[in-house]
């Protein structure tokens, strides 16, 4: 009797994932194979389970069925290869840490128990901060940073983790234009290094511009694949339904698409 296996070169392989909160199914029968080196957008209406998908991959919520394989192994075994940028509200911004401290936390996994954060890792943290353009803010306490800057600190932390596969939960939510540009630049740098990023995104208008791979999610995967194949009016209708605003957004987005297949 054989169980479907996935080669260790596949960053993320999900089989039959079902997640339920209080017995109400939130994600059903998710089957996904994400190729390496892609910038993957996860879009869908509110309540579609996008954040839950990420959390289920990271063992942060329990699964009712199915399995998640990261580079051919269970998440626990390949933890070091995964970086996570959570939603901004999940931390207490009054905590007495500086931006550099937060970024350095990304290296703790490599430092190990009890040993202090040495110069080498502080340096790595500084470099990560620099890449997001916040080198001057290293010593600031985090509550003194703007929303966009806080988001970039989280991103720098993920960079410091030096992972191969990144999960990001709404990094573009409520950030200023400068931060948005910084994030996009960063994503492309990661892609050039051969890393894979899964990003929960809410703005249909920018999907085509930012992501080369797309997952349309509404409790189940409506469609997943290269953006130009998946981002069609029909698929969007199946994901978002007949709400005027969603369709209008999609329509606008499609108009700007070059070579999209519309039906």
């Amino acid at each position, binding site marked *: 009797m054989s169980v479907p296996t996935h080669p260790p070169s596949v960053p993320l392989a999900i089989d039959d994932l079902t997640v339920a909160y209080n017995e109400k199914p939130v994600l059903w029968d998710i089957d996904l194979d994400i190729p390496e080196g892609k910038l993957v957008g996860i879009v869908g209406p509110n309540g579609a389970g996008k954040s839950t998908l990420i959390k289920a991959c990271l063992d*942060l919520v329990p699964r009712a069925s199915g399995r998640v394989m990261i580079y051919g192994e269970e998440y626990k075994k390949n933890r070091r290869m995964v970086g996570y940028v959570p939603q901004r509200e999940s931390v*207490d911004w009054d905590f007495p*840490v*500086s931006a550099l401290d937060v970024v350095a*936390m990304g290296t703790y996994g490599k430092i190990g128990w009890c040993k202090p954060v040495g110069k080498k890792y502080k340096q790595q943290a500084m470099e990560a901060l620099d890449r997001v353009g916040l080198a001057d803010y290293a010593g600031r306490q985090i509550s003194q940073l703007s929303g966009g800057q806080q988001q970039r600190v989280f991103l720098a932390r993920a960079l410091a983790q030096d992972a191969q596969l990144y999960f990001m939960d709404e990094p573009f939510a409520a950030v200023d234009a400068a931060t948005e540009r910084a994030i996009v630049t960063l994503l492309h740098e990661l892609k050039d290094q051969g890393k894979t990023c899964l990003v929960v995104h809410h703005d249909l208008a920018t999907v085509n511009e930012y992501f080369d791979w797309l997952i349309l999610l509404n409790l189940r995967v409506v469609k997943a694949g290269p953006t130009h194949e998946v981002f069609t009016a029909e698929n969007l209708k199946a994901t978002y339904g007949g709400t005027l605003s969603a369709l209008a957004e999609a329509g606008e987005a499609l108009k700007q698409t070059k070579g999209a297949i519309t039906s």
Partner: protein
Amino acid sequence: MIWMWMDTWIVLVGITCAIACALPGCFLVLRKMSMMGDAISHAVLPGLALAFMITGSRASLPMFIGAAIVGLLTAVFTQWVSQFGNVDRGAAMGIVFTILFALGLILIVKSAEKVDLDASCVLLGNIEWTPQDLVNVGPLELPRALVVLFIVMILNLGLILLFFKEFRISAFDPELATTSGFNAGLMHYLLMMMVAVTTVASFEAVGSIIVIAMLVVPPCCAWMLTDRLGVMLFLSAVFGALSAALGHLAAIVVPPWFGFHESASTSGMMATVAGVLFIFVWVFEPRRGLIRQWLPRKKIHSPDES
């Protein structure tokens, strides 16, 4: 006012106790678990009572083991009740500690024949008596409470230094801690055990109830004054020591102002002074204090004022 050598010992005991409490207290406060300190300090009662019933004496080591276990159990039971019972965390704490406390009270009454243990002594402490209970340490004769608290203080300091980044990350972002490979749950239970042991060490000095003041108030004073964790830990120790020293002083000096001829309870005064310090910081803190918050409004009304 007469200051006797006894008073110096009392102050030293108080300072050591305050510092020993302030250190783990910082993490309790940052993790929004201040009330856990309250819960544990009530809940250690059955642990103490059991230790007395079993060993029949006030020997320190079984007491600490009993306390560490009970501290752990309080955290574990609270976690169970809140997770499996789906009960709000605060309510879970209240349920667990009141039941454990009641159990402790009953055990103490039952064991009263065997051992001279008074519930109010456990709860309120008897710091004034500590200089009488001396113990030999090398060439010196020191109050036993001082020795015990000193050891606990060093222990707490050592653990925090050793696990500094682990405590920091599991307090700041438990999800990241877990995804980085540090078991945030482990750090949580370690902290709870530290609180329990510190509580027991302190009960002779200030009573387990006032320990809450030492666990929470100095760290809060420190938190309002700094944005750096290391500085916060240091400042909380300073505020704790100040509360202890000034507290004892006030207990002697203040009552005569109101016509009383005897001193007030030192441990109660230590908590009160800690509170006074807190109010001071709360109102006058240069960046975020109350005065600062009211001032700009004034400036708008009368721009001619400097």
